[in-house]
């Protein structure tokens, strides 16, 4: 009984990066061996277009039903996040670097209790100028950029690098270049809006 309690305490504390890394890495062979499927998530956005609004665009005219497994994977992903957030959290705020915390205070973000800061990503912000950038333009860049690059962090950085693909390394490097520019110069500016 005591062991069980200890186990749940361990589960409820934030996981070490190595535990997460191993489990994320194992997704690659799990999908390959379960059904010859290559791990990647951004293609779901394309399948959504192909299923709902192909509009006779050649890029969306393919048999998306052959990729229906990807919708199942993402369905599980949403459910898993729900389960973990509901029942497996310690309730402690995300411990963040003091410099980041200090910068965010100036932007009015003081609450670190959620993984997604509610003071920034809330419904009343959606129709503000800030919301236009953090929700609409940010999301647009994620969708447009990942498809233009031919994959996102999971497809290129995890699947592609696991298969030692140079184009995936190039894509990953430019993900990081964009991210560095954005987080260090763009985001601080946008937070002041």
């Amino acid at each position, binding site marked *: 009984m005591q062991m069980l309690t200890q186990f749940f305490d361990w589960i409820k504390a934030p996981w070490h990066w190595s535990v997460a890394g191993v489990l994320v890495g194992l997704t690659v062979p799990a999908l390959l061996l379960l*059904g010859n499927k290559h791990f990647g998530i951004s293609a779901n956005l394309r399948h959504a277009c192909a299923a709902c609004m192909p509009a006779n665009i050649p890029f969306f005219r393919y048999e998306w039903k052959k990729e229906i497994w990807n919708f*199942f994977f993402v369905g*599980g992903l949403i459910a898993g996040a729900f389960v*973990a957030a509901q029942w497996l959290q310690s309730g402690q705020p*995300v411990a963040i670097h003091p*410099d980041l915390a200090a910068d965010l205070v100036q932007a009015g973000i003081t609450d670190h209790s959620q*993984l997604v800061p509610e003071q920034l990503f809330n419904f009343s912000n959606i129709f503000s100028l800030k919301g236009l950038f*953090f929700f609409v333009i940010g999301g647009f860049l994620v969708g447009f*950029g990942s498809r233009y690059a031919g*994959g996102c962090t999971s497809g290129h950085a995890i699947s592609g690098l696991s298969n030692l693909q140079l184009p995936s390394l190039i894509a990953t490097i430019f993900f990081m270049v964009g991210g560095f520019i954005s987080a260090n110069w763009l985001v601080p500016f946008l937070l002041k809006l």
Partner: protein
Amino acid sequence: MNTIHIPPTSGGQSSLSEYEQRALDTVCVNDSEEKESLPANLKYAAVGLLFGVVFVKAEVISWFRIQEMFRLQSFHMYGVIGTAVAVGALSVWLIKRYQIKAVNGEPVVFHDKKFNKGQIIGGALFGLGWAITGACPGPLFAQIGAGALAIFVTLFSAIAGTWVYGYFREKLPH
């Protein structure tokens, strides 16, 4: 565009085979010839479920962790991605080396990606969005699952971005 080694199984309206069309600008492709029933697809949902738990528990979907990563204020995300790539690469190597087959007996198929300018231009644009939203596509779904319902707007916008890319694809440099 990707190089495809599988012979086309059915002809589409375009010059590309259905498979080539489906695999365009995409990493995660179904390479199985088997037609699986809907319940059989639940096994992918099970893998996704575990994946979702990991995403939340390791704070991978945290907007704060993404800011720290790009500001070089924390090793956490580098550790997660680095370990994942190491484990993934070892697994792929083992599958290739010992020609381990999928559970249905099919040989596991790998593809070589071809370089195109999209990996640079699209990659950088994606990076800009990644740091703003604090989420790449996987975490977008997970953030919604974890209860941040406002992120539906971001997800919808990401789908719109994908659609716009598809619309202008032929005109963009590749």
